[in-house]
């Protein structure tokens, strides 16, 4: 396993006596797309702002490529490219002039590099127009361009798809895929849009009320080998379900099975003379998992 690119150690943030982030610890590996999921107000944006040094850390530490964000700010931030919410640019400058502003702030960014980045995000045609004439999607692309200028190891995107239309969302997704595949970057994305996260991320952390509730690989969420199936049957004698985990629900039973076992189960029912009205897999989406985890967290809180 590669060394962690981003490391959070017991990070806590207190604002006006209120714990916004409570003892958050996790690591992000090289080349992975890491999703940061949580309901509104869970502390996603706060965590991201602490990572990029926009907010102070009350206790704990954040390391970017081994550099402490607070103590070695400049060295740590050299490795970060970021967009925090909608990328706000200087509207009275052109796209290119905006990029020049950021290019001047880091040593050794050549004109070719700027052109290359502009090409990558597909803004070549409009780069010399004023930003105030840009659509939201184009601003988002320009935002992506500014974050790529210094070849960072980590991209941090806070709600990158907010307010974008489906085509824009897809575009961002494609760009991120390209970045991780071609340049080996790690990407941290926060969002409250589950389906988005499911498509983009390798690993997802769910946070709620400033606490880490769960952290898992996306495939674990979606592609469990065992799955629940709903059987609508008029079953009187439950004995037939011996040794099989099941749950009685309204109108029928939910039974956890592997896919190959489903025909056998149906056969078993028909042989026993039980009428089957409906059989369907209960797809366990990220959303189910998310709701499960977050509402569960609320009950215990």
């Amino acid at each position, binding site marked *: 396993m590669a060394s962690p690119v981003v490391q959070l150690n017991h990070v806590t943030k207190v*604002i006006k006596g209120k714990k916004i982030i409570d003892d958050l610890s996790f690591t992000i590996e090289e080349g992975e797309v890491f999703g940061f999921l949580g309901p509104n107000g869970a502390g996603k944006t706060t965590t991201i*702002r602490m990572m*990029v*040094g*926009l*907010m*102070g850390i009350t206790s704990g530490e954040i390391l970017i490529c081994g550099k402490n964000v607070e103590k070695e*700010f*400049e*060295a*740590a*931030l*050299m490795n*970060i490219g*970021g*967009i*925090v*919410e*909608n*990328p*706000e*640019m*200087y*509207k*009275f*400058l052109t796209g290119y*002039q905006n990029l020049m*502003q*950021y290019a*001047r*702030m*880091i040593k050794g960014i050549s004109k070719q590099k700027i052109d290359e980045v502009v090409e990558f995000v597909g803004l070549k045609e409009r780069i010399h127009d004023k930003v105030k004439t840009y659509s939201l999607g184009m601003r988002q692309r320009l*935002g992506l361009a*500014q974050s790529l200028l*210094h070849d960072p190891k980590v991209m941090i995107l806070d709600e990158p798809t907010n307010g974008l239309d489906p085509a824009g969302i897809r575009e961002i997704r494609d760009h991120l895929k390209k970045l991780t595949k071609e340049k080996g970057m790690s990407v941290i994305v926060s969002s409250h849009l589950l389906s988005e996260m499911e498509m983009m991320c390798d690993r997802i952390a769910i946070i709620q009320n400033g606490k880490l509730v769960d952290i898992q690989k996306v495939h674990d969420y979606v592609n469990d080998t065992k799955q629940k199936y709903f059987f609508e049957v008029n079953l009187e004698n439950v004995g037939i379900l011996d040794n099989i985990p099941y749950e009685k629900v309204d109108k029928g039973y939910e039974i956890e099975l592997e896919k190959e076992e489903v025909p056998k189960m149906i056969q078993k029912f028909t042989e026993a003379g039980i009428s089957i009205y409906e059989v369907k897999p209960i797809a366990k989406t990220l959303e189910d998992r998310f709701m499960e985890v977050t509402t569960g967290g609320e009950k215990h809180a």
Partner: protein
Amino acid sequence: MLNLIKNEWIKIFKRPGTYVMIGLLVLAVLGTGILTKVYGDSGQSTNPQWKQELQQETKEYKKEMKGLPKSANTYKQSLERDIAINQYRLDHNLPPEQAETGWSFIYDSASFISFAGLFTIIVAAGIVASEFGWGTIKLLLIRPIKRTKILLSKYLTVIIFDVFLLAILFISAAILGFALFGTGDGNNAHLAYANGTVVEQNMLLYLIKRYLLASIDVIMITTMAFMISAVFRNSSLATGLSIFLLFMGSTVTAIIAAQYNWAKYILFANTDLSQYFDGIPMVDGMTLGFSITMLLIYFIVFMLLAFGVFTKRDVAA
């Protein structure tokens, strides 16, 4: 750091408002120049009767001085100064320049320094606050550059902008002044009164010094506007308060100074350093050293506030 200042400079000059400011400044100089030329220029350079006039003037001043109550100390001192300068002119056969010359036009144009100050304050008040307003502060602060450096570059840009406006004012006044009124009769010494004696000074040096001294006022208030901008992220507050103080500060301080001695600790009692070179201090017992110390204290307080708050602040907006 140079690149950061360049960035700020570009941001200032890519906005049309800046050119309006410069245009207004030049226009103000141009307007006064033309008005003075058309209505004010008497044409005669020296009154042949100037010696008698000066003697008469001195007599009146002396009479007036005797009648003054003790409390009018400041006025008395300024009369003493006028008398001494009149005497010096008589002794050295230096007639007072009556016609407008290029030099006197530059001198008069110094009154537009607060105009230039006004524009500098507007820039200073906006330079931090508008980054917050535009939302660009987020992308600005996630560069691998310390916040102290970013804020310092902004402050230096404001100071450079002030010097730039002063230079525009001085140069446009000089060009227009010499074009309209000529250089005078070559008698270009300035008479200054300090410590009871009168000294002649080179006019150009004197004028540059006058401009620089007059801008201490502007720079202090600009620093304050910058501080308010950085601390409160509100450019209207910074602009409003600072402009009010720019125009009213010294008047209010003068009123307080007539009554209370503690007025000397007020910023505006100390901003006009030319009172020590060319006049009488606002409050008795104030010295150049005292004023410079006070200015430094105010300056350090403003800077500590601005940098302290800006570097610690959580950017949430």
